[in-house]
């Protein structure tokens, strides 16, 4: 596909297609955006349990549910982030920081998720009384 496009580009003598064309129509179909991937209902259910446990102050149970969810979807950055948040609330700052970094590793271009991870890391560092690394 991209070779056909390259050929077309060459034929028309415009090898400097630098501007991003946000309309995905003519571009080679990118992988379906992750948002379209059907959410695993087991993971969604465990995430719900975890949130209910956090709300009720059962942080250890929340962490257990999130670990269960991570066994199902180890590459889900939201689960790593949620676990980081639980550890932050448990006062396990080093864990919170590492888990947020782990979330970042799978975050791809999701800047909102990255921003929240950065916030968690900053808060963990501040609370643990460290200034930076």
């Amino acid at each position, binding site marked *: 596909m*991209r*070779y056909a*496009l*390259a*050929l077309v*580009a*060459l034929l028309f003598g415009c*090898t*400097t*297609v*630098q*501007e*991003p*064309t*946000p309309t*995905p129509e003519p*571009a*080679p179909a*990118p992988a379906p*955006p*992750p*948002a379209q991937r059907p959410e*695993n*209902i*087991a993971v*969604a*259910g*465990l995430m719900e349990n975890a949130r209910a446990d956090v709300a009720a102050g059962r942080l*250890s*149970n929340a*962490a*257990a549910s999130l*670990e*269960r969810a*991570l*066994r*199902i979807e*180890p*590459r889900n*950055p939201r689960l790593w982030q949620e*676990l980081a948040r639980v550890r932050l609330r448990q006062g396990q700052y*080093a*864990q919170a*920081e*590492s*888990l947020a*970094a*782990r979330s970042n*590793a*799978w*975050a*791809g*271009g*999701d*800047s*909102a*998720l990255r921003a929240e991870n950065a916030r968690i890391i900053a808060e963990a560092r501040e609370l643990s009384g460290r200034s930076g690394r």
Partner: protein
Amino acid sequence: MARRKKLVRYLGYALAATLLAFAAFALHLDFRVRSEFEGRRFALPARIYARPLELHAGLRIAQADVEDELRQLGYREGAREGELGWFARGSERLDIALRPFVFWDGPQPAKRISVAFEAGAVTAVREAAGGELSLARLEPLPIGGIYPAGNEDRVLVRLAEVPPHLVQALLATEDRKFFSHLGFDVRGLARAALSLASGRMQGGSTLTQQLVKNFFLTPERTLQRKLTELVMAVLLELHYDKSEILETYLNEIYLGQDRDRAIHGVGLAAQFYFGKDVQHLTLAEAATLVGMVKGPAHYDPYRHAARTLERRNLVLRETREQGAITMAQYAAARAAPLGVSRKLGTGTSPYPAFVNLVHRQLRRDYDEADLRSEGLHIFTTLDPRVQEAAERALTKRLAQFDKERRFGAPGLEGAVVVTDPQNGEVQALVGGRDVRYRGYNRAVDAARPVGSLLKPAIYLTALAEPSRYTLLTPIDDGPFVWKSRGAPDWQPANYDKKFHGTVPLRVALAQSYNVAAARLGTELGVERVLANVRKLGVERELRPFASTLLGAVELSPLEVAQMYQTIAAGGFRSPLRAIREVTTQEGRPLQRYALAVEQAFAPEPMYLLSAAMQDVVREGTAQGLKRFLPAELGVAGKTGTTDEQRDAWFAGFTGDRLAVVWIGYDDNRAARLTGAAAALPVWGEMMAALAPEPLAFPKPERVEHVWIDPQTGLRGGTSCAGAVELPFIEGSAPQERAPCSGAIDEAVEAIDATVEKAKSWLERLFGR
């Protein structure tokens, strides 16, 4: 006259003395009975469970594998309305009547579920009522215990849980007057006295006497012991009521042997022989157990089925004669088959190496005596399916190697460790080719030289400096001598005894060139590389010699797995864990071993290293893996071979599993072993059985992929023969274009860049 008086007086003294002695004896026994019976709690082994299988839509698992797990759990095939613990097979569908189970996070009630499968995956889990379930947890498989002395195992039951027909059958057969006698039976005693004349004490024991015998006494048959037993039985009856004595009896009674494990009590016997809890025993099953009381080895339902059936029917007849059951019940029970469940015959554990690891990890936090008596429940990470694949691959290959004498004389040994690279959970552990042998656990205790397995640490140290090293950096594999004070000169050689001149860094790793690695490692600094080995998770002391870099260090397979786990997790180190949770006997949570993560390395050099380790499999020393697994999986790994080919290693990972295989001789003799020829086939065969997920490392933002012309090491494209796409940390990729690279390649690059930008723009727009 005076003489007669004297005699009477002496007789009186003697009688008084005898009575006094007897009173003292009785008092002593009374003290023993009360203190021991009262203080006696049955020592209950810690019970160890595998991970529970969690079924949910999207889970990749074959229906047959779920059925296997259910069978192992003692579930029976075929619907049995009103009962628990069965499964019924439909087309691409399983109906399961789940038994209740107390998990770490609370009890899970009995439940009827229906699981739909399609193309090797679960598509839906429903309740019998029809509602969709997001997740259904099967009870975990018991995989062993930590046992009290004598490997006594039991599951305590309350008298109220024991079905009345079991008690009736027991009393009808063993002690008809139990509820009226005082601990002994006069007729029985008379019989015992008669048998005394024949020289052997036997028969006539009440349940109380049997209990006393099992509880307090040695099995010798003498008059004194018989007398002691009698007195103690009476004392027991005086102090405790019948129901307490009966309940203790039901929990104490010995009912057979499972290899080295002794089956005690009707609670465990019900589970062991019939795969159900005691309250669900049918009359026929209860009668079988009662029949076995007389001699569990003689009436072993597995080995002597006919004899046991006959004995059972006798028990039923006696129960009928006592009027405890109706004629119809009797007839139905008599017609029933023995119905014992499939014998698993696993002894104290089917997975001794794994249980050994669990025991070690527990000892850090628990007292040994508590582990052997408190009946703790230990929930572990073992995946029986993975364990089975590991055992099968190792035993099959070793048998084949022995037969062919490919690597030396028969008698090769091996060990396997499998973990989940994302969280460090140990899924399987094989400690030797006799997988049921509870002894030398090579996976944990055999520290062997690791050969080239440390090399990734050298390359990682280099790649962390993108200004000096990329995957393309030329490394010199020419003759090399390392001189250091106080040590003889060190002159490493390559496996093929040749030098390969200057090679790109990734080729040096893929081909496992020793000289190049030694030169690079010493250039970087031995201490620096060893510091990274420690950061990867190796805790053993490493001698600060250059030769250590080439594997002159001894590690166990488990330690190697810890090191490679950090690589497989992209630089995040998690301690390997075999335990998830510990609860008390009643299910109260005591401890959770949580997932712990520490970022030990930046993601960028780790990404490059894993790409290089994929090349080991794609074009390097582990190419043989192609015979087992498709190239698209992108497996990353490293072979290891040691001096005089004594040890063979392969350590590698896919998207969902990491495994380390070691093969060698226990006596450490020189052989013809290589990692690629001996360890790799075991690894490949095991992984192929587990349908692994492709390796998908998250690409760090600061890494870019560039097409490279292998001839020049410059930017190329598909117009260059054999062009490869390689990752570079931003700013470190070559800028210059290879002559073979045409305008079309430039255009492709430009379009790729555009697509990349559009993708990230879209992601930002819609979020993920």
